[in-house]
């Protein structure tokens, strides 16, 4: 193991988060699935209310996507805002309801890439900066210390991967996009995405986790 993770520090860092940690909102998922089509057409029609619904539905996902790509909290907030600003400017390119989340993730991915490209991302080391996994209580931490450390090592290893591979894994496994959606979000074909995913997993597997 290259890097021993100090969980005490990370526990302190994420202490303020634990009390507020939220479970995934299944109802939001259902709502999105049912309303993608109408939301997209309302957005294309320029309905402002649809834009606020889009923000409500996706701002958390986009923020977490930015965090998982290795941006710090403050920057992730800025990039999330930038992503939506870009979305308003590119609403004309929105094609169909099914592509709504891929379209938004694609914009988010480009915003993140543009940030790295501008060289402003140099201060980031990668995913490591996003904060390591914590446990909700002391007892759970003590019982699962080994497992949590493994997750921590996985997070560090993920942060060391090339950004392209990191993004592939994050989109599919962490943001929960299907292969088709994630491929669209990454701007590549499904087959290419699958092989990139396999290579990224292989690279992770080779690391000591």
């Amino acid at each position: 193991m290259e890097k021993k993770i100090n969980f005490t520090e990370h526990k302190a860092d994420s202490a303020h988060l634990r009390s507020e940690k939220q479970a995934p909102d299944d109802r939001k998922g259902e709502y999105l699935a049912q309303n993608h089509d109408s939301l997209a057409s309302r957005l294309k029609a320029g309905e402002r209310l649809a834009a606020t619904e889009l923000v409500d539905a996706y701002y958390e996902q986009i923020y977490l996507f930015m965090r998982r790509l290795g941006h710090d909290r403050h920057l992730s907030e800025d990039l999330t805002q930038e992503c939506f600003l870009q979305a308003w400017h590119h609403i004309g390119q929105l094609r169909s309801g099914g592509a709504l989340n891929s379209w938004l993730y694609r914009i988010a991915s480009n915003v993140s890439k543009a940030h790295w490209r501008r060289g402003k991302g140099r201060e980031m080391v990668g995913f490591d900066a996003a904060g390591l996994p914590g446990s909700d209580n002391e007892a759970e931490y003590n019982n699962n210390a080994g497992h949590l450390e493994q997750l921590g090592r996985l997070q560090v290893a993920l942060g060391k991967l090339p950004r392209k591979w990191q993004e592939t894994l994050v989109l599919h496994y962490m943001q929960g996009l299907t292969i088709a959606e994630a491929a669209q979000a990454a701007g590549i074909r499904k087959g290419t995405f699958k092989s990139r995913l396999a290579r990224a997993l292989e690279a992770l597997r080779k690391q000591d986790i």
Partner: protein
Amino acid sequence: MENQKLEKLLRELAGRTAEPIAPDLAEDIKGQIPSRLAHRRAGMNAINIVIDLRVSKLAAAAVIVISLFLCLRFFGGRDLTGDNLYEESKLFINYCLGNKTADRGSELASVLYEYLVSQGIEPVYYGDRVDISDSNAVVMYWRLSDGGYMVRFGGDLRAEAVTAEELIELQGRMLQKRTR
């Protein structure tokens, strides 16, 4: 480690790295929603289409040059900027085509031809039949008011005023070259 276990760990990591978000973030984003979301895009759609087509530099250059000449014709065939339009088109094509000299020569020749036509001159054009890189090849010529002819040669498209006899001789040489 097996891929399946890795995948499971990655999914678990997603849950562990979920964190609460600044409560005012959503409101900040909503505050930036423009009052007119899509209506102002009408004019921009055409531009977006051009951008989306990802046209090559050459095609983009051709479109711009042709547009310039169309504008010129529309305003009565007068180049109000003197020869600047042709010169600037030349620079533009040089920039766009970089080192592709063959393309550059023929593009420049056709730009020059279009330019002359727009000025009311009707040159005889050989650009599509001769080797444009040959500095002795007559690319185009036109009659001057004094009875002589202005010839543009290949290579750098240099201009030379010649008499009718000289022009016939030049054309004869070109024919000889073509029959060889």
